[in-house]
């Protein structure tokens, strides 16, 4: 059961199975939404009063209606562009800072020891907790939103890079040193390639983290073309349709960026040996 047939022959089967799951989920959601339409109450008690016309599980038609409204009015497209640009800016800058810090802290022992307490500390101050501080220091504009993402991403990639370089098998490092490799050569040919896996997985975590941070960061000085505020507005007015459309859109964006990242990684590491059964 663990043995997998050759990848080429297996692909259609796995696709078929994935589609079966997708179909089942779609069908059960349709049934559940129709049943909820009939059975569940259509009002919800919020704090001090009832809100009417709330669908706990909205039907496909109402979701499509909401999606059409958001798309035709252009809110959705503009929000997607604005939020994605913010994430990409923060992610690019943050990963640059994080990876260079990671290389620096794994460089010499003394530097590693002196940076260690700071790294251990910052790893557990969630970037979100810095939101009030940043809005105090840098204002509530674009800068603090991006800096918040930069902080979160930088810490995670710093940890990943540092960990990856430290986990490099000592035999490789010693062999390279004995053969007369200089520092730069050692870093470029031994340390970075062997740390690539850790760096990459930390980048994936950081990408997801950037989206989480953004959703909260967009609540300061909120402007409407932004996914975070769209979700917040929808929840303030208890519009379940908008909430679900927003969640789906954000999920698709994160999934797409993850798939792009994996493709890039596989292309970059096609030289590596793979463990495939």
């Amino acid at each position: 059961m663990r043995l997998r047939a050759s990848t080429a022959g297996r692909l259609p089967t796995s696709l078929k199975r994935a589609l079966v799951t997708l179909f089942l989920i779609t069908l059960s959601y349709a049934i559940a939404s129709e049943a909820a339409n009939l059975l569940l109450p259509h009002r919800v008690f919020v704090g001090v009063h009832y809100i009417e016309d709330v669908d706990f599980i909205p039907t496909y038609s109402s979701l499509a209606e909401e999606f059409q409204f958001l798309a035709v009015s252009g809110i959705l497209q503009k929000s997607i562009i604005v939020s994605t640009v913010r994430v990409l800016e923060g992610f690019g800058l943050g990963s640059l800072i994080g990876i260079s810090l990671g290389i620096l802290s794994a460089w010499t022992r003394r530097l590693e020891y002196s940076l260690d307490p700071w790294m251990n500390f910052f790893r557990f101050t969630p970037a979100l907790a810095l939101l009030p501080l940043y809005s105090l220091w840098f204002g509530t504009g674009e800068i603090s939103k991006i800096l918040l993402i930069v902080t979160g991403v930088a810490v995670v990639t710093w940890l990943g890079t540092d960990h990856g370089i430290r986990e490099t098998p000592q035999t490789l490092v010693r062999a390279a040193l004995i053969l007369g490799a200089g520092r730069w050569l050692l870093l470029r040919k031994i340390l970075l390639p062997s740390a690539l896996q850790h760096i990459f997985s930390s980048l994936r975590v950081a990408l997801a983290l950037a989206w989480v941070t953004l959703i909260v960061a967009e609540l300061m000085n909120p402007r409407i073309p932004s996914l975070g505020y769209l979700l917040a507005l929808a929840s303030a007015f208890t519009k379940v349709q908008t909430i679900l459309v927003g969640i789906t859109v954000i999920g698709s964006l994160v999934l797409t960026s993850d798939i792009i990242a994996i493709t890039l990684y596989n292309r970059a590491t096609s030289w590596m040996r793979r463990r495939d059964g």
Partner: protein
Amino acid sequence: MKRLVAHQVSVGLISLFTGIALYTLISNAYLYNISGLPETVRNVLRPGIIPPTQELIRVFIQLVSVQPNQIGGPHFHGGPDATGGAGSAFVEQTLGGPLQYALLLSSYRVAFGLLTGGALGFAFGIVMGWSTKADDYLHPTYNFLRSIPPLALLSYFMIWFGHNETHRLLPIVYAVFAATVIPTYHGVRDIPLSYLRTAQSLGARGRLLFTRVIVPAASPFVLAGLRYSLMVAWITTVGVEMLMGGDGIGQLIYDVYAGNVYAGGLTVGVDAAGIIVCILSLGVVGYATDFVAKTIAEKFTRWKPEGL
């Protein structure tokens, strides 16, 4: 080895103290004649922007020691009612300050999320990693579910469960679940085939194979993932509390920011000092939980061969 550790500790301490001393120096610069400096620098060197170290200590003592009955300005929505738990009033009275109370509540949420979500994610990851069939059926759906940021689900959960503890804990459980599945999945899938073949040819099957081969071989990956899960749990907890908290450290940070915490008639907040104190104590508690996780991980994976 011992000398090396002592060296590490001393260098780390020196670095830490140098940083604190530098900060104290910079933050106290406003007390002296700095009119020679350019205006932008003078604007930054204000106690409201970079609070001096003694101010941080004063606010810390205030947040730790104020009796809870003195807290509660017009907009303060913390307190025992918000949690709804019967024991929370007792906890608050025993602990004293709002800071300990908030940190304890948040750590409880983190622990709950870690235990529940971790167990669920572990089970799910083993199933997906072991059976190709389950992997095929479930992985695409899981990939999409994992992509949804837990904080985005918060409002939908609230509509279902109302404004109570359930809807605060669910996103944390969900986040930890998503973070635990990946390392477990890879750990189980990448068990060296030689281990399995050896065990199977010696006649191990079913439960024996599971408890003696699969779980130990996957555990280094799972425990390495535990520290990531812990980080994710803290981030989600703080985010949830900031968005819809009512209490906990995220709410306290926000309250301090908005000037909602009153201590003996004095506003603690509005300035940066309260926020920084909260963030620093969050870091300390987070570091402590990570230390526990690290110790556990090292204890259970002592057998791990080098280079795995």
